[in-house]
């Protein structure tokens, strides 16, 4: 079997998880640094309701941009994010099955689970898990969430995050992500190189620092205002994501001094914790109404 294209890989994984009871969601349409930050993960893992979801999430990390010149580093990469809540007892077997579904013959490769715990201080979230190594390459992050938004989780979800570029580069045996075949006749470079070049230039050189600070302040206020109102947790959370992305932009512009840094992270964290609290209260209210 010849290696799958980028999009075939995505489709195969979506099909695989769809067949195992996952809702297939589309990417969240606000800039995020990781699939974890999309509300489908951050908010859905909270509370007592089971949930299974899979989606591709373009993840933007302005400081990781390399103007399209580094073969492995990207400002925006694609994660396939799977949440299985609660985590089933055969979760690792399910995961290994997904690798087979994209053409990895486990009998011919070396797979290892190496300790790698995950923590996102700005989200008040952490988990226990591994990086999954295939022939010496990290292809996924596997995490049992323990806390999110500062809350101990009622049901422990398993989060599987596939680094799609890495996996497909591996399957297609190419040394640069830009040489990945995205679709027949189209390489990754054809689809994405311009983003990398232009956004690297913007993120590192052009983004207006003054304006970003203003936006940060405005969106922070908006979030605080919305958190106090019942029934608008989701719009409030969007403001958290925007603040978080602005923070990342300011960081890549080198605009955040040491003393400011801790403070700004704290501001984002407070917003995230506030939203998580509001979400939990909303859930509690619903269960009271039902009872």
């Amino acid at each position: 079997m010849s290696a799958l294209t980028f999009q075939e890989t995505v489709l195969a994984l979506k099909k695989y998880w769809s067949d195992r009871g996952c809702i297939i969601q589309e990417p969240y349409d606000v800039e995020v640094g990781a699939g974890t930050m999309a509300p489908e993960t951050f908010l859905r893992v909270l509370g007592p309701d089971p949930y299974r979801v899979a989606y591709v999430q373009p993840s933007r990390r302005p400081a990781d941009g390399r103007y399209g010149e580094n073969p492995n580093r990207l400002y925006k990469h694609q994660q396939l994010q799977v949440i299985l809540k609660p985590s089933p007892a055969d979760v690792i077997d399910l995961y290994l099955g997904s690798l087979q579904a994209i053409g990895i013959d486990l009998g011919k490769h070396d797979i290892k689970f190496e300790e790698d715990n995950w923590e996102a201080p700005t989200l008040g979230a952490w988990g226990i898990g591994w990086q999954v190594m295939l022939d010496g390459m990290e292809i996924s992050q596997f995490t049992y969430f323990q806390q999110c938004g500062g809350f101990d989780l009622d049901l422990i979800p398993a989060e599987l995050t596939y680094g799609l570029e890495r996996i497909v580069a591996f399957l297609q045996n190419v040394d640069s992500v830009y040489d990945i075949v995205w679709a027949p006749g189209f390489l990754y470079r054809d689809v994405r190189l311009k983003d990398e070049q232009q956004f690297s230039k913007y993120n590192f050189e052009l983004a207006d620092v003054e304006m970003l600070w203003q936006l940060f302040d405005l969106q922070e206020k908006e979030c605080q205002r919305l958190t106090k109102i019942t029934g608008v947790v989701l719009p409030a959370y969007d403001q958290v994501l925007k603040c978080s992305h602005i923070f990342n932009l300011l960081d890549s512009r080198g605009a955040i001094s040491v003393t400011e840094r801790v403070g700004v992270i704290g501001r984002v964290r407070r917003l995230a914790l506030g939203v998580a609290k509001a979400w939990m209260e909303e859930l509690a209210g619903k269960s009271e109404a039902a009872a």
Partner: protein
Amino acid sequence: MSLPFLLEIGTEEIPDWMIVPALNQLQDMFQALLDQNALRGRVTEVDATPRRLVLRADGLLDRQADVEELILGPAKSAGAGAAGGFARKMGTTPDQLGTQTTAKGEYFAFAKRTQGQATAAVLARELPPLILKIQWPKSMVWKGKGTERFIRPIRWLVALLGDEVVPFEIGGVKSGNTTRGHRVLGKASIPVTIATFSQALTVNGVILSADERRERIECGIKAWRAKPDPDLLHTLVYITEFPTPILGDFDPSYLELPHEVLVTVMRHHQKYLSVEDADGKLAPHFIAVMNTEADPEGLVRQGNERVLRARFNDARFFWDQDQKKRLADRVEDLKTVTFQAKLGSYYDKTQRLVRLVSDLVRDKHAQRAALLCKCDLTTDMVKEFTDLQGIVGGLYARAQGESEEVAIAIYDHYKPLSMDGDLPRSQAGRLVSWADKWDTLVECFKIGMSPTGSKDPFGLRRAAQGVVRLIVEGQVPFRFEFVDGSLREFMRDRVEYYFRDVRGFAYDEVRACMAVFWDDLVLLQDRLQWLRGVRPTPDFEPIAASFKRIKNILKQASFPNAAVVSVDLLEPGPERDLHTEMDSTFGEPLESRIGSLRPRIDLFFDKVLVNAPDPNIRRNRLALLNRLLQEFSSTADFSEIVTER
């Protein structure tokens, strides 16, 4: 009847470095369980892979022995009514009671028999809490809030006593007789008995014995000239159930990169062993250890080579990028690198380091190195390979035309990395290393971040240990005279620990010398060596005992230090003789004075009453003793020496 026992705790992959300590706990706790419950039996074997902790025991009773216990009731004189009540309480009838005569008289008594429990029942009750009691550095829940905690989810349990399953349940997993093989090489469900367990694992791709796994790796790499690395080997043994080493290559052109970088990439990022050529130089190969049986099509080797190529390319890219801005031009950039949230940036730290070094000595290399030593924190190379901080700075300094002295000082300034690790090679390196560590200590104590108990997030104990070694062994001319408060106490502890536990001086000798003066550690070392030399001489212990006595006498008398001995008041005989001897030996080395004074002191205490009725004479005698004590206390406080008397 005597039975064998087998326990297998099946889990998802446990971090390699936690496995051995957990096994040790399991062994100790299970043996204690057997002993406390009088089940006989010994733990015969514990072993583990990342997915299973296994314990075997042998010689267990199939049930506890019955126990007969004589319980005393009311005195016989209390009569039949009391006997009836006692019998009811014992669950029996009065005719079953006997009597027992004690020193206080005759009592009703009952021989209570407790039936021993079946061993399987005891184990079924005790095993779940025992297993969950294993302490892990960081445990987790895998079902939900408030459920069982373990290091990783428990997925199966094998518990066999003889031929029978010991039935219990942890987190919804029931114990049984079914194990699991290697994720790829073995079956997912394998029924076993105690006798077939080992064989079943072997044919299902699991080498249970860590020793065997290590042997398999060592055997496989024998011909490849691997650079010895016991720590990495240990890791590889405990991240695999069926380890198989393979040899891969990389393009020799990467050998142009600093070998420190190549080895770090291979070791820390990829867990590869490095390979040396016949001359002991780094060769363009690596050894990866797979968790599977073979690599028939070479796919695993190709995959690993590809990953390493990408990593080395990154390193080369970082090296080239980083050269575009010299270290000297990066000092300002340190303003954006946090040293510690409350302590500001590495720029601030750098300013302090330069000052500390300049205040101590005039050494332009050390000053230059202090200014540049943290600049590599802003380079891509160190951001990616943090273990190489310092080393990268040193390499860059050399490449950018800084003097060799400066380059070496920067390269070495994190040393010593451990208690017995090497000190920096040059004096400039030792000065910068000292300044770096001392600054961290001073600043952290300033904001109250001192280590407490086992918590020492900033590694202050290690920093302090480094400071002590740099002063004593590295000729850094720093003294603790202006250090006070809790930092002084902390350093005092570390100094005491160093001389006692690292250098092997007796604890009372360390105390005796430190009680006098410890600000200058080099002097302290000299005095300790002197004391160690003089201690075995025959007069030493008696004189130390006398000094203890003198100190007590002076203390009880609340004697003022400043009093002067009046020769006229000295009584002829032992008192005057002692004084004369003191005068005539004054200024001689202590070790010779000890010999000449000891008999005089003994005679003085034999014949002279310090507490003389005449207050003037008494005061004079105290003054004499005080002078004696003072003259001998410049090196060590002898009263701290533990003597047999």
